[in-house]
């Protein structure tokens, strides 16, 4: 019950006390009238499904990672052997640092370009609704399918990007987009940025629209230029939305699988693997379930820190 209302008009007070009376009415008090029982009933489907397909597999994943299970072989407890083996594996180390590098740069690009796009979209112009809607397309279209379009654009022989750069006079020889590990990873970062930027832009746009334009007007009267207005007015007010979006994006990017799987398949010579694609290669393609599970569990500490920071931040917001 809200306090200020209770002190107000007489009718509101009646509403406020109505709840306890409702159960003492002559109508039969069904079991579902009890809040605890009702909550239990309403939450059962969710708890059962999530328990069976998230909690249980999680526990089983930890068990698998500590065992020598492979396809057709039940395996036995081997302690931390799988984790040690992965850490001493040079391909795994490459995959691990690739994942950090990929996540870091893609997040920086998505945030800065998304912010820029959000500021542009926040203005009034003709065709605003159409542009806003079409900007979300990369985010809506299945990643695998749009990544195929990029792979075709990066094709070693028929790349349209090479053609453009050549015609523009920027290059003489074609660039080895996906046939070189370093280029390959940067291509993946570019595609990830292309795909994730709209989500940043639309979320930040929603944040921008809650900012009172008077604030900007006041700041510009005080002589602030565009950059100062952004830094001292817009950014502080956007920070909460930004943090939430960045956390979601980090989790998605850090655990990314499909983009690399389609774009480079981890190649050339395993130089562009991410943790998830390498776990797939070991766990599913090779059939070493135990080792694969151990590799994918290496994502956990990073995800844990990110989630913990986010929860702490949300708590603080709720407390404030």
């Amino acid at each position: 019950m809200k306090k200020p209302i209770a002190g107000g008009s007489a009718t509101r007070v009646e509403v406020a006390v109505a709840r306890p009376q409702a159960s003492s009415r002559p109508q039969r008090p069904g079991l579902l009238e009890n809040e605890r029982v009702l909550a239990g009933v309403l939450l059962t489907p969710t708890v059962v499904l999530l328990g069976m397909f998230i909690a249980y597999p999680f526990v089983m994943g930890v068990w698998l990672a500590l065992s020598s299970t492979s396809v057709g072989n039940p395996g036995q407890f081997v302690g931390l052997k799988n984790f040690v083996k992965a850490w001493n594996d040079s391909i795994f180390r490459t995959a691990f640092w690739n994942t950090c590098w990929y996540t870091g740069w893609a997040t920086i690009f998505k945030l800065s370009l998304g912010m820029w796009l959000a500021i542009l979209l926040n203005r009034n112009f003709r065709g605003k609704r159409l542009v806003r809607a079409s900007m979300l397309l990369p985010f809506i279209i299945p990643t695998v399918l749009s990544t195929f379009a990029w792979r075709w654009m990066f094709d070693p022989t028929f790349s349209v990007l090479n053609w453009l750069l050549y015609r523009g006079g920027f290059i003489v020889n074609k660039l080895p987009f996906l046939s070189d590990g370093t280029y390959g990873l940067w291509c993946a970062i570019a595609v990830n940025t292309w795909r994730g930027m709209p989500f940043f832009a639309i979320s930040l746009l929603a944040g921008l629209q809650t900012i009172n334009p008077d604030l900007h007007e006041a700041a510009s009267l005080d002589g602030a230029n565009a950059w100062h207005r952004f830094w001292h007015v817009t950014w502080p007010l956007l920070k909460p939305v930004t943090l939430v979006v960045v956390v979601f994006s980090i989790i998605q990017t850090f655990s990314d699988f499909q983009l690399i799987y389609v774009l480079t398949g981890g190649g050339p010579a395993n130089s562009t693997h991410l943790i998830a694609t390498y776990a797939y290669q070991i766990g599913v393609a090779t059939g070493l379930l135990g080792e694969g599970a151990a590799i994918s569990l290496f994502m956990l500490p990073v995800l844990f820190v990110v989630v913990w920071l986010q929860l702490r931040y949300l708590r603080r917001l709720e407390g404030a």
Partner: protein
Amino acid sequence: MIIERRWKKWVYFYIPMTVFVIGTLFPFYWMFITAIRPDAELYRSWRAANNAPFWTFHPTLEHVRDLLEKTSFPYWIWNTFFIAVVSTMVSLFCGLLAGYALARLKFPMAGTLGTSIFVTYLVPPTLLFIPLADIIRSFQLGDTPWALILTYPTFLIPFCTWLLLGYFKTIAKELEECARIDGATRFGAMIRIIFPIAVPGILSAGIFAFTLSWNEFIYALVFLSSPEKKTVPVGVVSELIRGDIYFWGQLMAGALLGSVPVALVYSFFVEYSVTGLTGSVKG
């Protein structure tokens, strides 16, 4: 109003905006132009003198026809649609009930439960696919749509629950209390008063759940194996590439046709989906 000079508007607005629009939409245009281009034009050296890559004078539907007649593409579309619709409905059902309970009811452990549902949202499928494959195998669900219908809700339910929880919190409690004074049961008030008001929230949760399950890749890749049982993303990746040869015309036709359903769903409800998205971020 902050007044600008004309050239400034070009430099700070029109030019960057145009670059953004072209950059965002070019891959889709490229998909389209590749899908309707005859093979003879498709594979020409990037340095060929007469190469005009951005348009074609000989549009053809050959690739589309091949895709529909010679591959299992129609099955994949149907499979994806069926799986997406059923798993969306399961998730909306669970999410509605759970979201309502967390938003409105007082019970012990409410906070803990809410937090743990939120945390499961942040557990990526790539962390769980290996043990899940084992579980699916032991339930004998491998290579059936049910493997996906039962596992997709694991990432859809938390999302739906949180989106709807936020929506329920914006609905005034007094509405429900009035209904109960008029003799409605708790359950009845929830079904007949609150759920109808929440329809916009339900729609946006549904749209996003649908697009998320249409996009899902790794579970479908690991759990399905027969060619005619696959979903669109997996089918395109694994069945349209024979050996090392990429049939780009067919691949791009597949990518285009496989994107159309989500794009349509999204464009019909663009207003709902954008408000839903922003709502979920704020919540």
